[in-house]
């Protein structure tokens, strides 16, 4: 396995493409965890719902319309999720909430099969992003560059929102010290609604972006959920900065692993999770939002 494979631009871009998709998904999960202290095992199912809605909307309208409409639809789903599940179960233990979201994922899966059937669907990239372009000597799909741009753009926007807006500051406060923040007059319920909608909206965005990048099939939710959990935990539960860093590391480990030790590549993410959870339980970040 000559090493030139490792350092050519295409492999670097592949790692960033995977990292950007995971970042969008993981930051959504980290937000929900930061605010509601709930590890949402249904996040993969939201992502899959986003991909299937993306398929339908881009067929009827256009891919660009889907990029806007689907995250909003998922934000609505997020609102229902917050009001029907997270808020009433605030007092319950973290484990109970996690198990309920696990049950939800089991419900959303078959619901999607009922509507869209079980055959894998293919979503074509819009004409503007369909071709490939010369990237420092090798042909590289335009769509993936777009994906990298959107992925990190979303994260920058999220970081700016957290840093410079009032609701962003409240979010950081609540995720660190919920009781004190409540005493300071932060309406945590209203804020949680906003944040959960944002989190599931991000999952919808990731779903739509995944259409042309990967394939839309019934197994996509479960496979990416485990990667997403690893990224969030390794990044530090509830920390957005940590989640972004962990997503990039995860992307590189996955790509480099595939090139250097193809069969062991599959093990790399799990070893990463084991080492982090045991050696540094709060993960890379400071274990709180941003």
């Amino acid at each position, binding site marked *: 396995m000559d090493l030139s494979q490792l350092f050519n631009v295409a492999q670097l*871009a592949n790692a960033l493409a995977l990292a950007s998709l995971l970042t969008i998904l993981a930051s959504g999960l980290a937000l929900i965890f930061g605010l509601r202290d709930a590890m949402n095992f249904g996040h993969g199912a939201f992502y899959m719902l986003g991909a299937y809605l993306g398929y339908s909307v881009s067929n009827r309208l256009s891919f660009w319309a889907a990029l806007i409409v689907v995250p909003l639809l998922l934000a609505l789903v997020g609102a229902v999720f917050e009001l029907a599940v997270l808020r009433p179960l605030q007092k319950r233990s973290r484990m109970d909430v996690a198990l309920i979201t696990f049950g939800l994922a089991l419900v959303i899966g078959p619901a999607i099969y009922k509507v869209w059937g079980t055959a894998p669907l293919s979503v074509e990239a819009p004409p503007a992003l369909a071709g490939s372009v010369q990237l420092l000597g090798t042909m590289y*799909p335009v769509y993936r560059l777009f994906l990298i741009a959107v992925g990190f753009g979303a994260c920058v926007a999220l970081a700016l929102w957290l840093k410079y807006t009032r609701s962003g500051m409240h979010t950081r406060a609540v995720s660190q010290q919920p009781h004190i923040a409540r005493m300071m007059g932060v309406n945590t319920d209203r804020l949680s609604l906003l944040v959960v909608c944002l989190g599931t909206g991000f999952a919808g965005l990731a779903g739509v972006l995944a259409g042309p990048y990967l394939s839309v099939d019934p*197994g996509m939710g479960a496979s990416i959920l485990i990667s997403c959990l690893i990224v969030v935990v390794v990044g530090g539960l509830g920390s957005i900065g940590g989640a972004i860093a962990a997503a990039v590391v995860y992307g590189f480990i996955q790509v480099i692993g595939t090139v250097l030790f193809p069969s062991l590549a599959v093990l790399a993410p799990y070893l990463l999770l084991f080492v982090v959870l045991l050696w540094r339980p709060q993960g890379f970040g400071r274990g709180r939002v941003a």
Partner: protein
Amino acid sequence: MPDTTRRTLAAAALLSLAAPFSFAQGSGPIKIGLLTIDSGPFASYANLIEQGARTGVDILNAEGGALGRKFELVVQSHSGTPAAAVAAATKLAQQGGVSVLMGQTQSSHSLALVPKLDALNVLQIDTYAQSNDLMTKSCAPNYFRVNTPDALTTRMMQDYVKATGAKTWNLISMDYAAGQSFAKGFTELVQGQGGTVQQSLFSPQGTADFGSYISQLSKPSDALVVTLFMSDGQSFAKQAKQFGLFDKYKTVIGNGFATDFQLEALGDNVLGVVNSLSWTAELPGARNAQYVKEFVLRAKRKPFYTDADLMAALEVYRAGVVKAKSSEPAAVRKALEGLRIDTIFGNVEMRAADHHLIRQHGMAQVVKGANGKNEFVMKVVKSGPDIYPPPSPECKVH
């Protein structure tokens, strides 16, 4: 088609008419069990398989069934794991009263089922699993196979590889039983003809992003062989198009990669790809043409190779029942061994030594059809005796 087959065809029809008068052992419908998968990557093709089997049974019943009894299809779906397949087969055999099993049995399912067939007292006529083991060490008295195993695909490629004149090869296959055995066989084949395999990559099942593999394959060689199935194949095809990978190769060969029932979803991503294909509607033979006509009439779509394999399996079973004059598994097994049967593949033999149907196999290319739709055109067709390897000594069926 030589007229002898036409005459034997008429004789077989007569025979089936005469059958009702001879009192057959057992009465009521002859039940055929169909295994389908309801979750995982193969689930999306379950209704396709069921439709193929149901249409085949309807055609046979229209031709008078066997021994004056009609055939009846009993369908049982399961979650797709080998253990679930065994449980579903047990239910069909003990609860459904079926005397033969067929359907969506992947290699791992058939390998798990074979040791149980005797205890369940049921035959299995496989149309799905491709593993070579089922022709060698994992043979069993009650196990028959109609579809083409991997070894055959590799031998089919032999002449085609020589014809392309390509010297350097890249391979990408699923890190999966079928993928592993094929890659090994193909590498030996290429080296045998003085060629070299530059890269042989394996991608775990359920890989979504093939970017890192495609970038490695971008280091060109003369030809590329893709052994990826189902949704993995579809993802690879789409992403390869985005990378413009196929344009870098003179020849691209698919094994289970471009299949007719995925052709529509694959679209132009696979234009020009040559794929091993064991059957197309355009194959010669009166019975084949008649089958295609009736299939389109009943199912409102063109039959794929999976439907043809199911039809052949049903025809083989009918011939066994007619010869044995009973649907009792042990009797049908003895009757089938060495039997020459008229099927849509023509007059073919069910080899006694390893219970494999010696039928044809081919190589087809994806071309833009007259109506603008992509379709397969057979480039090479080989008859069974030319390509089936001699029966393996490891295989014990008595």
